[in-house]
């Protein structure tokens, strides 16, 4: 069972349909956009774990722009670019801009599913690490409250004990007065 949500962006209706069907069959939660504008609209409407976008699309918003929009909206969204063999250089450029991977056309579905599984693994590790960090933060927070209260209390007690010591050591005062003064300080604790 895959709970990953994927946005497929491709202007070619055949590829778009094919990707949608194969991913849905593998139980991914899939949405499609036929160009960059529609992709932008969808990205603003809901969160996607992965955006699978064609690099070259007609209109002002190509794959690189989709990548930038997706990352701007949510850093955690991973973007995979689909490229023609001839545009591998631009795919590498896209990876420098934060794309997680690229696939060459024609799409090899075994390869695509392997990449997706890799992303799932990394995401679950991250999720796990985040949960552990959150649990650690909560524990640390509770512990620090206790420790800090004890720290202040210990310092106050030490201060009182120093006063008691001073009273008991006071010179030129008779023992009973010294003891009574010390007891008064102790009674105030």
């Amino acid at each position: 069972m895959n709970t990953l949500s994927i946005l497929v962006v491709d202007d070619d209706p055949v590829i778009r349909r094919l990707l949608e069907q194969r991913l849905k069959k593998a139980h991914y939660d899939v949405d499609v956009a036929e160009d960059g504008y529609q992709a932008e609209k969808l990205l603003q409407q809901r969160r996607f774990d992965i955006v699978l976008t064609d690099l070259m699309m007609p209109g002002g918003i190509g794959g690189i722009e989709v990548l930038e929009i997706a990352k701007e909206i949510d850093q955690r969204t991973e973007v995979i670019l689909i490229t023609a063999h001839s545009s591998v250089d631009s795919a590498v450029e896209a990876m420098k801009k934060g794309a997680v991977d690229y696939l060459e056309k024609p799409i090899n579905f075994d390869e695509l599913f392997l990449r997706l599984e890799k992303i799932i693994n990394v995401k679950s590790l991250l999720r796990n690490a985040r949960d552990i960090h959150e649990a650690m933060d909560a524990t640390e927070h509770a512990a620090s409250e206790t420790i800090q209260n004890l720290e202040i209390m210990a310092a106050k007690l030490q201060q009182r004990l120093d006063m008691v010591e001073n009273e008991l050591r006071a010179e030129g005062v008779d023992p009973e007065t010294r003891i009574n003064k010390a007891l008064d300080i102790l009674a105030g604790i």
Partner: protein
Amino acid sequence: MIKIKPNEIKSVAQYIYDISGIFLDSNKTYLFETRLSTVAEELGCSTFSELYAKARSDSSKNIERKIIDAISTNETLFFRDKGPFELLQHKLLPEIIDARTAKSSGLKSSIKIWSAASSTGQELYSIAIVIKELISDLSRFNFKLLGTDISDNAIAQASYGKYNKFEIERGLPKAQLQRYFTPAGEFWKIKDEIRAMVNFRKLNLMAPFGGLGKFDIIFCRNVAIYFTLEDRKKLFNKLADSLADDGFLVIGSTESLTGVSPRFVPKRHLRSIFYQKK
């Protein structure tokens, strides 16, 4: 992963203590195994005794450095635990600035801050960001921000100021990320204006602090927990010597100086505690 044998624990633990001051008791064998196995394997050792022997006979100390890098904990964040940085912004810095400006009689006041276990630099850069945001005209003061750590790798990474997105994601608000960092692929690099405010150098807190001088504010968080009580006493005694009489010490939020140092008194400000000399 290489398993540590019961008869190896004592000598390896003693060796790690000698080179780093980090005290690992025998119930922390998992730390030897998880952190030192890769070093051992990299050097072709199949046991910890072998690694120990190799490290001892290595006059270049390269193996020693690798072991220190592996054993020291580098879990740290920008603004890890908001408390100390709010404390710095609202209480410690304003007080120190007032005190130093009153004394300086027109000269630029010098304010020295030390991150005593700076790891990969996040704490010191967070301090620098707080200062940058608090003080509109930095040229009025002579800020000296020093970060020290025992690990060469940590110092190198801190000096470079480059962090991966996971190191940066937690703790650092997006606005500050964009203001003080430049994206570099999967990484973010601290901007020169912040980088130029700080200095890093290697220091083992167990060794003498020779030449560091006195600081106005010292951050020494979450490092003494790896030391024995005796070593903690020595460390905080040395820190008291290195702190100005009206200076401030900040320790980890779950650490305590009760029974460790009689020279400091705890004081509360909002949800945090700081220490001053008695």
